[in-house]
């Protein structure tokens, strides 16, 4: 066993880890990881609400369509979704799509399916009396969902959403496969260039991912406690 770690490789490549070739080229590294996670999170929040609403809808075709979609996506690995987007989206659209957007779309589709289950659970957690009371004051069913049930449900969903964001940060590492220069890709590039420091490099990025994810995991736990006390 040779335990002679040499961390200079980390320091000399620090800017590359942080932002990639940013000022002179496209954004990369940790910054791109966070960017992908954030954009995909916002989009899949919207996607999750739409799919979740379809899921609890009383209109049967809509309900079964969304159920089929959600179950299909949850049944396959994320890597397959990325491949579908990467190889087949250009074929359908007839033009190329930037890798960043391929990955963002794949992550959004994938995460929306999981978010929709959170939305569904959140909506179902609102007591039925609320719906009945709102209906009896003369609101239409759509108004009841939009102004009474959804806002209360969303509050219960916040911790789960934060957990999904953590999963998203971890999942952005798969963008590596289609050549997006986020943190994992940057690390493999540096590893290929320097060759003899794989242990240091991969331990370092594992630590970076850990710091990012653990921050949000702790946040979600704190929120869970706070929201539970108030309810």
């Amino acid at each position, binding site marked *: 066993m040779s335990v002679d770690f040499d961390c200079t490789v980390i320091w000399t490549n620090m800017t590359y880890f942080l932002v990639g070739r940013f000022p002179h080229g496209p954004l990369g590294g940790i910054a791109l990881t966070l960017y992908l996670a954030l954009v995909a999170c916002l989009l899949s929040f919207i996607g999750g609400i739409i799919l979740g609403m379809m899921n609890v809808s009383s209109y049967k075709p809509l309900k079964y369509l969304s159920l089929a979609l959600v179950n299909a996506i949850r049944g396959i690995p994320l*890597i397959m979704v990325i491949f579908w987007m990467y190889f087949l989206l250009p074929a359908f659209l007839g033009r190329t799509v930037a890798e960043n957007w391929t990955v963002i779309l794949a992550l959004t589709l994938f995460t929306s399916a999981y978010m929709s289950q959170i939305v569904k659970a959140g909506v179902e957690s609102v007591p039925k009396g609320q719906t009945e009371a709102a209906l009896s004051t003369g609101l239409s069913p759509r108004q009841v969902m939009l102004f009474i049930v959804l806002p209360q449900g969303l509050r219960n969903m916040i911790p789960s959403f934060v957990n999904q964001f953590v999963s998203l940060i971890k999942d952005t590492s798969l963008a590596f496969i289609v050549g997006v220069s986020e943190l994992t890709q940057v690390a493999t590039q540096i590893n290929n260039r320097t060759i003899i420091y794989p242990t240091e490099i991969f331990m370092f990025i594992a630590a970076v991912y850990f710091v990012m994810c653990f921050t949000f995991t702790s946040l979600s736990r704190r929120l869970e406690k706070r929201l539970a006390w108030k309810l």
Partner: protein
Amino acid sequence: MEWLVSGLTITIQLSLISMVLAFLLGLVLAVMKMSPFRPLRWFAVGYLEFFRNTPLLVQIFFWYFGSYKVLPEAVNTWLNDLNFEFAAAVIALAIYTSAFIAEDIRSGIRAIPKAQMEAAQSSGFSYLQSLRFVILPQAVRLTVPPLINQFLNLTKNSSLAMTIGVMDLTYQARQIESYTFKGLEAFTAATLVYLAISSIIAGLVTLYSRKALFPLKVH
């Protein structure tokens, strides 16, 4: 077609071997996390937090590229004699999944009311006996559905092994795409196979919950 079948075989082998290892590791970790001895508990907490909060892909790369510096020489040669890609994937998958399994097992045990333990002990069982004859038989039944779900996740996660050259189902689909340009067919076939695996496993969970959990729901 033969490629896809051989890929499926690898996927199943990879998932099953990793699952057995992950279950054993997870059991040990769950017990450690509940132990009254603090250092053990801290170790378990650190382990669970670290491996749950880093991407599986990075862990796979670490074991594949970087583990030779932290593992003893003998282990390295032994792993190299085996199929190293496969071994690295198994190690990464087992360690990653064990962190999730440990939490499932722990919450299964905690779901059994404390009074059961007290009742068992007051009727003359020792601590270990009450754990063995009263708590665990009930906890195991509660833990089976989440465990099967973890197995499903593990099967899906095993697709990441393709990145280090394990020739699993996803790898073969990709291979067919680049050799024959029949990407659509290959990816459709692979997707359907994954869907079939997931549906079978999900069906098992439903069946199990209906058959075995119902008597427990009464209290």
